[in-house]
C-alpha cells in the first residue's frame, strides 16, 4: 500500500515537472551554461570560430557562459546527430555548417534538416577558383577557354562535399569540364595545387586567403554576389561568365527542433550583438573568416536557398548514396 502511494507520488511528481517545464520557459534563461556542440576535433575552422564567438558572447552573458564542446567523428555526423537528439531546452546549440543540409540527403543520417531550428548565421565563406603560382592560367578567362576544350584536373576536399558540388554546378552552368581529384581536407589540396600535381583547386576563401597573400597560389574568381573588399581585383563568378551568382558554405548556430522561441530569440540577439563588436570583427578578419550576420529568419532563408541549389546538383549528377 505504502509502495503504491509512493509510486503514485512519483508519477504525479514527474507529471508535475513535465507540465511545468515544457510550456513555461524559464524567464531567467540562460540560468546555466549553454554548450556549443562542435562536431569536429579542436583546431579547425568551425572550432576556432566557435571559440571566438564564445569569448565575445560571454561578455554579454550574466549568469551563464557559452562553452564549446567537441564531439568529432563520422565527418561531423556524430556531433550533428548528438545535437539533433539533445533536449530542446536552449542549452544545446549546434555549430551548424552547410554539411548539415547535405548530409541527410547524401548519407544515411538519423537526423533530418527539419530536426533543427536555425538561430543565426555568423560567417559565409564563398567558393574560389584557385591555381598554383606557376600555373599558365593568369586569368579566369584563360582557364575557361581551356576547360571548355578538354577536362582540367581539379582538386576538391572530398567527393559530394559543397566544394565538389560547386565544380559540378560550374560544369552545368558554364560548360566547363573537370576531372575531380578528391583529397581528405585542405592540406592535401594545397600540396597538389602548389606542386602542380593538379591544374585547379576549389577552396572556401577562408582556407586559402593567407596562402594567396603569400603568393603561393592565385585566386582567379570568387563566388560572391559582388566583388569583395578584401579581394578587389578578383572578379566574381557571375562577372566571369560562369552563370553562378553565389556559392558559399556557411557557419551558424542551430538548436534542436522544439526549442522555445524565447531561447532562439535570445541566442539570435546575442550573435547580433557579437557581430558588431569591434574586437570580434578584427579577430575574425585577421583569421580570414568573412563576417556576416543573419538572424533566425534570414538564416532559414540561406539554408533553404542552399538546399535548393545543392538538391539540383545532387539529383542531376546522381550523388545520392542511398
Amino acid at each position: 500500500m505504502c509502495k503504491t502511494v509512493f509510486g503514485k507520488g512519483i508519477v504525479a511528481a514527474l507529471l508535475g515537472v513535465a507540465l511545468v517545464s515544457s510550456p513555461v520557459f524559464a524567464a531567467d534563461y540562460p540560468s546555466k551554461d549553454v554548450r556549443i556542440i562542435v562536431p569536429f576535433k579542436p583546431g579547425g575552422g568551425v572550432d576556432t570560430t566557435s571559440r571566438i564567438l564564445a569569448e565575445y558572447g560571454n561578455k554579454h552573458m550574466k549568469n551563464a557562459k557559452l562553452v564549446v564542446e567537441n564531439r568529432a567523428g563520422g565527418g561531423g555526423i556524430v556531433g550533428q546527430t548528438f545535437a539533433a537528439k539533445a533536449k530542446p531546452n536552449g542549452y544545446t546549440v549546434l555549430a551548424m555548417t552547410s554539411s548539415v543540409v547535405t548530409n541527410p540527403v547524401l548519407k544515411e543520417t538519423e537526423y533530418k534538416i527539419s530536426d533543427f531550428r536555425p538561430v543565426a548565421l555568423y560567417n559565409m565563406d564563398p567558393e574560389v577558383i584557385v591555381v598554383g603560382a606557376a600555373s599558365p592560367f593568369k586569368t579566369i578567362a584563360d582557364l575557361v577557354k581551356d576547360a571548355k576544350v578538354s577536362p582540367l584536373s581539379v582538386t576538391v576536399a572530398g567527393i559530394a562535399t559543397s566544394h565538389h558540388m560547386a565544380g559540378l554546378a560550374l560544369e552545368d552552368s558554364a560548360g566547363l569540364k573537370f576531372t575531380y581529384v578528391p583529397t581528405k581536407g585542405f592540406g592535401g589540396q594545397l600540396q597538389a595545387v602548389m606542386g602542380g600535381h593538379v591544374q585547379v583547386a576549389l577552396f572556401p576563401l577562408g582556407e586559402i586567403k593567407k596562402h594567396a597573400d603569400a603568393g603561393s597560389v592565385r585566386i582567379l574568381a570568387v563566388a560572391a554576389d559582388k566583388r569583395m573588399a578584401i579581394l578587389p581585383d578578383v572578379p566574381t563568378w557571375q562577372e566571369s561568365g560562369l552563370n553562378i551568382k553565389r556559392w558559399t558554405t556557411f557557419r551558424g548556430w542551430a538548436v534542436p527542433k522544439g526549442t522555445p522561441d524565447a531561447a532562439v530569440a535570445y541566442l539570435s540577439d546575442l550573435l547580433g550583438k557579437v557581430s558588431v563588436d569591434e574586437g570580434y570583427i578584427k579577430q575574425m578578419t585577421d583569421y580570414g573568416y568573412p563576417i556576416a550576420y543573419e538572424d533566425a529568419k534570414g538564416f532559414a532563408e540561406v539554408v533553404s536557398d542552399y538546399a535548393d541549389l545543392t538538391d539540383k546538383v545532387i539529383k542531376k549528377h546522381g550523388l545520392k548514396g542511398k
Partner: protein
Amino acid sequence: MDSILLGFTTLMDPGVLGFMLIGIVAGLIVGSIPGLNDNIAFAIFIPLSFSLSPTYALALMVGLYCATAVGGAIPAIMVKVPGTASAILTAVDGHAMARNGRAGQALGIAISSSVFGGFLSGLVLLFFAPPMAAFALRFGYVENFSLGILGMASVIGLLGGSVVKGLISAVFGLLVATIGFSQQSGYPRFTYGLDNLYEGVPFVPLLVGLFGITAVLELTEELVHDRRKGIKTADMPRITDSLLPSWSMMKRLMPTWLQCSAIGNIIGIIPGAGMLMAIYMGYERSSRRYKRLYEGKPGEVEWGKGAPEGIAAPESANNAVVASSMVPLLSLGIPGNSVSALFIGALMIQGMVPGPLLFMDHPDIAWMIIVGFLAANIVMGPIAFLLVRSISGLVFLLPKHVLVPTIALLCLTGAYSDENSVFSIVIALISGTVGYAFRKLDIPHAPLILALVLGRTIEDNLSNTLSISGGDWMIFIDPVGHPISVALMVGAVLFMVGPMISGARKRLQARRQQTEMELQNS
C-alpha cells in the same frame, strides 16, 4: 642569421623557456602513459591554448611534440607496453634487454638515440628547410603511391618465420583499411550504418588497442598462469645498471643512428608518409646490418632478443621525423603528418596561418618554433634521464596485479578521449583482442600495422593518379615525368627480391655443404 638570433631571443624569454620545459616534462609523462599520445595531448591542450600568449602556447607544443616519442620508449622497455605507437618496435629488443638485467642500458640507448635523431632533424629544419620543402612539393599522387608500395615492401624483410602468416597479417590490415567512405565515390563502405565508422575505423583507439590492450592481455595471461602453477610472478625489470651508454657503445651505434635519422628525416619531410613508416624502414635496414655484422658473434644476442641496434633504430628514426615534419608545414603551410597538422590548429587559434607569410608577419614566432626544436632536443636528454631515474623507477616497482589493470584503464581512457565517445573504447577492446589472437597464433603485427597506416594512402593515391593519367598505369615508371616514383619502385622491388635472393643463397650453401659432407663420408 639575424632571424635565427631573433628566434633565439624570443625563446630565451624565461616564460617561453618555462613553458617549453613544461611541455617536455608533460610530453615525457604523457608519452610514458600507455594509451595517451601526442595526438590526444594536443587535442586536449589546443582549446586551453586559446587563452595563452602565442609564444608560450607554441613553445609548450614544441616541447610536447619532441618529448612524447621518448616517453613512449620507457614503458616499452620496462613492461613491454609501448607508451605511444612510435615505440612499438622499441618494445621488442628494449624489453628483452631489460629482462637480461640491462634495463638502464636499454633506456640510455633509447634516450640518446632519440636525442641524436631529434637534434639532427632540428638541424635539417633550421638549415635546409627551403630546399627540402621544394623536394617535398614534388611528391604528388604518383610519388605517394610508390612510396606506399615501398613501405609495404619493407615488411618483407621483417617477416622472420612464415611468409604466409605475414601475408595474412598484411591482407587483414588492408581489409580493415577499406572500412569507411571511399574517397573516390564519397560513399561509405562496410560501415553497417555506424556513423562512427564513416571516416574509417578511428585510428588512435585502434592503435591503442593493438599495442596497449594486447600487451595487457599478455601480462594478464602471465599473471594467471603463474597463480595457477603457484609460481611467484617474476618482478618487472628494475634499473640496476648505468643509464649512460658508454663511448664504445655510442661509437658502435653511430652508423645506425645516422642511417635511421636520415630515413626519418626524409620520410618526415614528405607530407602524409608518417612516423610509423620511418620506424619500420629504419628497423628493417638495421636488422639486416645487425645480422650481417654482429649476430652469432660472441657476446652478441639474436636480433629481437635485446640487440642495442633494435632500440637505437626505431628511437632515432621516430625522433628524426618530429622536426622534419615541420618543414613542409612552416615553409609551405602543408601539414607533414597528423601531429604537425595539429600545429595548424594551434596556430589558427592564435590567428596565425603556417606558411611563408608566417615568416613575414610573425618572424619571431616562426623562428622561435624552429630554434625551439633544437633547444628542446638538447634539454630533453638530461630531463629524460632524471625522470627515468626518479619517477619511472618508482612506478614500475608497483606489483604487477596493480600495474596491469592501471595500464588497461589508462588505455581505455586514452581511447575514449580521442573522440569523446564510448565507441572508441569498443574499438580499442576489439583491436586488442584481435592483436592478442594474432600473438597466440604467431602472426606478426608489423605487416598489420603498416597495412593499416598505408592502405588508405595507397588506395587514394592510386585512384587519383589513374583519374589524372586517364587510366595509364605506366605513369608510375615514367622516368621523365616521375623520376622519384621510378626510384621508389626500384627500391620496392629490391626490398622484395633481396630477402628472396639471400634466402636462396643460404639454401644453396646449405645444400652444397651437405653434398660435400656426403662426398667426404663416402
